[in-house]
């Protein structure tokens, strides 16, 4: 068959003539959906609406997760499960006991740090409700079509850091889990933008699992910690945008019409994400505790803590015991924050030190799954560059947080 190729111009001319013959556009009346649509992208009405939506998101997240965690999981685990397993597990004080149950005298599951105690409690008692709440709301936001409108609204801000409004979509996805968010960076146009996006997400955006644990430990400080991380995100973005060569072109954001979410899709999608969490994250949480406990038993973590003590104490203002949590953060950040909570409950950390170390865990190395995703998407070179950005940010923003905590006198 002879194959003809058209130029871009010829193609549009042909489309024009086809469309004139087949498409008939009647008079279109604006509907309520169009009115809401207009209001949600106009700054005067859109910004208050966006704040209301995000606040509602946050309030629901806190209320839902708190209801299940504080109402059911904490009493069930701390009052019944923990004492029972501490009594029943054989060989108190032996290595297996330490790995699976943890501290035989621990009064709460945050402090025990065993696979069956802290592991199950953090994974199912704290993180699971948080993940369910987060994805339920995220799915509804996704399916109504609100996200691209938010993108239009924040476009100007993101242009200042060399990205464009659509960067809000991977950023919000990242607040659930960094892994799919890194993949979602593919929709950005240039290599520069994609690299910046992936690095900023991996360094500054804490995942839903981690936020869930933070919300349980330091509810009154979580908004401030998130605000600080977003501050780091924008400052670092502005710096990177000037340092990295490459283009940051304007793009048009395609805004689909508002649609009512189909309940079946909301249910399937939330379930797919939650079951993904159970299959991928729970083994990492439990396995991570085994690894970290083995490192404790072998003395590796104490050795690291001694070696790094000067940096931690002087620069970050946190005691060297937090090194254990940073090792855990390689595998799972939620459990790492859980460990810090245990240390605080045991009196090893003050509130100020807990806040700084939570920020350190957030900025510090992406978890293993994100690390692999960064590698897959950007290759070794970009991964190394991201890690360089991460190291600098870790020291700059960790030190800055130390200063803020000291000044605020927390």
């Amino acid at each position, binding site marked *: *068959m*002879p*194959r*003809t*190729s*058209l130029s871009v111009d010829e*193609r*549009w*001319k*042909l*489309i*024009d*003539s*086809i*469309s004139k*013959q*087949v*498409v*008939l*556009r*009647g*008079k*279109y009346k604006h509907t309520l959906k169009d009115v809401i649509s207009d209001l949600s992208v106009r700054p005067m009405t859109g910004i208050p609406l966006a704040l209301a939506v995000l606040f509602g998101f946050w309030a629901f997240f806190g209320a839902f997760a708190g209801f299940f965690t504080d109402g059911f999981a904490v009493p069930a685990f701390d009052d019944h499960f923990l004492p029972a397993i501490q009594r029943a597990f054989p060989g108190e004080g032996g290595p297996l006991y330490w790995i699976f149950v943890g501290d035989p005298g621990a009064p709460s599951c945050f402090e025990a740090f065993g696979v069956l105690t802290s592991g199950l409690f953090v994974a199912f008692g704290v993180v699971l409700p948080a993940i369910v709440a987060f994805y339920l709301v995220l*799915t509804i936001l*996704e*399916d*109504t*079509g609100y*996200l*691209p409108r938010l993108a239009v609204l924040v476009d100007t801000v993101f242009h200042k850091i060399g990205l464009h409004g*659509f960067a809000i*979509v991977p950023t919000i996805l990242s607040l659930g889990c960094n892994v799919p968010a890194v*993949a*979602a960076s*593919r*929709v*950005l*146009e240039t290599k520069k933008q*994609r690299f910046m996006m992936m690095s900023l997400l991996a360094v500054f955006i804490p995942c839903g699992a981690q936020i869930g644990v933070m919300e349980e430990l330091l509810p009154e400080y979580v908004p401030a910690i998130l605000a600080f991380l977003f501050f780091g995100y924008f400052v670092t973005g502005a710096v990177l945008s000037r340092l990295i060569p490459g283009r940051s072109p304007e793009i048009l954001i*395609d805004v*689909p*019409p508002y*649609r009512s979410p*189909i309940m079946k*899709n909301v249910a*399937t*999608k939330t379930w*797919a994400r939650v079951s993904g969490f159970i299959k991928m994250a729970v083994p990492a949480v439990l396995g991570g505790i085994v690894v970290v406990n083995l490192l404790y038993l072998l003395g590796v973590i104490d050795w690291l803590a001694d070696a790094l003590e000067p940096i931690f104490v002087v620069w970050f203002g946190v005691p060297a015991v937090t090194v254990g949590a940073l090792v855990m953060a390689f595998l799972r950040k939620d459990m790492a924050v859980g460990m810090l909570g245990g240390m605080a409950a045991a009196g090893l950390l003050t509130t100020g030190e807990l806040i700084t170390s939570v920020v350190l865990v957030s900025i510090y190395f992406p978890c293993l799954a994100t690390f692999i995703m960064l590698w897959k998407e950007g290759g070794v070179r970009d991964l190394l560059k991201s890690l360089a950005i991460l190291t600098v940010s870790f020291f700059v923003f960790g030190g800055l947080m130390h200063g803020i905590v000291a000044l605020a006198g927390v």
Partner: protein
Amino acid sequence: MKKIFLAGNPNVGKSVLFNRLSGARATVSNYPGTTVDFTKSRMRIAGKEYEIVDLPGAFSLEPKDKAEEVARDMLKKEKPDAVVSVIDATAVERGLYLTLELIEKGYPIVVALNMSDVARDRKIKIDVRKLEEILGVPVVETVATTGSGLKELVSRIEEAKPVDVGAIKQRAGR
């Protein structure tokens, strides 16, 4: 096994169609760029097994972002036996752009005019027979979210064939 690809602009409902056809559970959202990688599954038509691939959305075969690159590379690498070009019935023109590119590259095409319910609500009338006559490939109106038109689409996938864009030009009177 024969391969069927779903191609089209971002946010036209390819993944919904994919899930409907294969029973798979690709992630579906109401924003462009939900699918950034291809998803594969299987479907049966009249007792025959097909492989069905959901591609990331693309405006053109000349990629502007990495998701579009994935779509183009998959089309190039694996030779599909049929490409379902999914067009948003409320934005036929830009859907036709990709469709024409696919036709020029010689892929056997079936057109799914998706979201035809929304088009109807917006008083957009599309002369499906005329479009089919001009393009020379099957054109089927669908509503992937409800499943309407999917039976016809499936039954006409076998009719997908390569056509010459020169002939389309003639039929369009240009």
